[in-house]
């Protein structure tokens, strides 16, 4: 039971961080379908810190991992910002390209790095068995991951920024009615840049949290197994509102956690269902939920439409 709670919380943290990232981007008017690729990049950033600086003290390790994953995610999201805002490219296409590129680039990079270290090693795996210990403390049997706290803080911060600050009001105006925002002197391009870069930051952080959640090494060929898309679903299910996103993340986090721990529950083990079924569960439920709820969903009105100052 504790195990279920622990996995639920950590996977919910991942989904929440990435979904909040998507939320910022979409509230500014840019559809960020490239979260998957951003997560991979963030994960790579964090993993490299752990690989090359293995002997740091725990707080320093956490700080550097967070900073580096956020930074790589942010830099990578610049691709979307430049293409979608400056060149008014189709945001769905750019996002898709980013997903393909993210996994592929990370794989090539890690393989090259591994081969350079030892000629026989052609895997795309980075290991961080010992380093990972810095991220957790045990409270009884419960393995508390510092990322859970960070996610909670960022959730509250996101809510505050979106609904209580000047920045949030202006950001959401740009996603709803950019012409209106422009007419009162708000620089729509700048706000959209801010939205996309914040999503890169949160998405990158989500990436490192995901690859350290259940395992001690990561094979970058696998990307992040569709978690970026799952986070998009969480965002839509949460109606682009941070508090609802948190609840949706908990639900999907629990479903994902089940696949890790279902054997610990006697009645689930007794059903003797194939493990793959549990692995599929969050994705299937996601499809079903979205099919029934997306009709009533209220996306930011101007999302996906490139803003052109000349058009009035």
């Amino acid at each position, binding site marked *: 039971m504790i195990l279920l709670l622990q996995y639920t919380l950590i996977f919910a943290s991942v989904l929440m961080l990435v979904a909040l990232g998507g939320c910022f981007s979409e509230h500014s008017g840019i559809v960020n379908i490239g979260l998957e690729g951003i997560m991979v990049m963030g994960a790579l950033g964090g993993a490299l810190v752990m690989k090359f600086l293995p002997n740091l003290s725990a707080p320093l390790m956490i700080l550097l991992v967070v900073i580096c994953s956020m930074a790589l995610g942010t830099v990578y999201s610049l691709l979307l910002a430049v293409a979608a805002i400056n060149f008014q490219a189709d945001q769905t296409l750019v996002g898709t390209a980013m997903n393909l590129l993210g996994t592929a680039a990370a794989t090539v990079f890690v393989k090259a790095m591994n081969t350079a270290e030892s000629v026989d090693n052609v895997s795309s795996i980075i290991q961080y068995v010992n380093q990972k210990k810095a991220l957790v403390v045990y409270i009884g049997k419960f393995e508390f991951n510092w990322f859970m706290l960070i996610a909670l803080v960022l959730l509250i911060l996101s809510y505050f920024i979106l609904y*209580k*600050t*000047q*920045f949030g*009001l*202006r950001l*959401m*105006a740009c996603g*709803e*009615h950019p*012409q*209106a*925002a*422009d*007419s*009162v*002197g*708000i620089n729509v391009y700048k706000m959209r840049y801010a939205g996309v870069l914040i999503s890169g930051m949160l998405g990158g952080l989500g990436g490192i949290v995901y690859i350290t959640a259940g395992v001690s090494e990561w094979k970058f060929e696998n990307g992040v197994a569709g978690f970026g898309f799952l986070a998009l679903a969480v965002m839509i299910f949460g109606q682009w509102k941070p508090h609802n996103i948190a609840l949706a993340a908990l639900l999907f986090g629990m479903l994902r956690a089940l696949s890790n721990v279902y054997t610990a529950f006697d009645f689930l083990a007794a059903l003797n269902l194939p493990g793959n079924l549990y692995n599929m569960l969050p994705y299937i439920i996601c499809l079903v939920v979205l099919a029934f709820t997306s009709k009533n969903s*209220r996306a930011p*009105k101007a999302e996906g439409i490139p803003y052109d100052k000349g058009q009035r």
Partner: protein
Amino acid sequence: MEQPYAIEMLHITKRFPGIIANDDITLQLRKGEIHALLGENGAGKSTLMSVLFGLYQAEEGIIKKDGKEVQIKDPNDANDLGIGMVHQHFKLVECFSVLDNIILGVEPTTKGGVLQKAEARKKIIALSDKYGLKVDPDALVEDITVGMQQRTEIMKMLYRDNEILIFDEPTAVLTPQEIEELMQIMRNLAAEGKSILFISHKLNEIMEVADRCTVLRKGKYIGTIDIANTTREELSRMMVGRDVEFVVQKDEAKPGDVILDVQGLTVASKAHSNNAVKNVSFQVHAGEIVCIAGIDGNGQTELVYGLTGLEPVSSGTVKLEGQDITHAPIRKRSTMGMSHIPEDRHKHGLVLDYSLEYNMVLQRYFEPEFVSKAGFLKQGAIRSYAERLIDEYDVRSGQGPITIARSMSGGNQQKAIIAREIDKDPELLIAVQPTRGLDVGAIEYIHKQIVATRDAGKGVLLVSLELDEVMSLSDRILVMYEGEIVGELNPKTTTVEEMGLYMAGAKRGATSA
């Protein structure tokens, strides 16, 4: 001594490739006056305003504020000079509250950027009392009436302490009562020392509220006159350059057989879960123009969709010349003699990237006249047909039949649709806002065509938001309010005020239809 000028635009010239949009135009706005800017579409009003807002830079001429020359390079400069504008299409974020919309861009905050809404609320309430502008700061914009949305826009300017207020065609979306209210607000604002520039092509409103009027025609400055010393006729002559007939010349209607018979029609709304058209019954006879009047969004669009087959109906029957067409496909309706001049000419009227000639045979290309048995289009027949229509209906375009529809002006696009719809000799013509966005000359022409269609013994169902058009063109008026027909009026005996009460839902009558 004259009042000083609040803003002056002197000898403004702005050229675009191949066209002079503003040719030596001078506009002087006095402090505390309501100054109308009158002109047809394409006369250069919008360009002049864009120059004032810094969206365009004029090649020649200067702008003076309070007698001093100023440079306006972008809208923020205009804002800093206290110039504000209520746009024709409101610039409001629908899912924000009224208060959030008002403060957007000039939010009161702490140093850290945290919003301080209480302060803003106080200021808004004070302004609201001072100018008699009723707004509810906490309501969401999507929930409030168009009138209150407009007041929110006005409040946005007042909140920014703007001194020069520009209203761009502000009355297009309002009921007669709301227009009256707006006029009063404008008078209040002027009395408090604000200078108002009122852009319009509605002569009645200008005559009622403005102090002076500047007229533009085809990019040229025609003159500025005192409203007190002029007449509607003189203004229109200045605007169009010739005498315009305001009253549509038409004889008494001679209604014949029933052409369209609608019984208990109900159409579901796409936007909401309720019914947009509720149990509507009426008839249109041959040789009469029946007009559906009402404020935009009271079910007129859905009614027409139901009649023309663009949307399925929930219940009720529609008969065209006695035949049930309730569930007939659109082409069947068309070939049976229903013509439709749609509300949105870009969406339902034309294939914008097709040539003019293909657009003109959109509903007839499958007839033997235009297609061979093997299924190939007869290009020659299509070309000569299009040339005939272009000639007869005076459709002007760059390259004649092969002009791409998108490149044509709105008025000529509309003429092309009208040519197509009337020339196929319909029994029933459904015309939805046929003159929307067109200038006086084109309106006059389209009205004549509609009357001619009636006189040829056809039934005409006109849906219009323009009260003048309703009053002058129709033989019978049905007023729609919230999806129901709430009154049948005779244009000869009713008044605009009475119609307004029906349109606003304040009055209901027994309907004989």
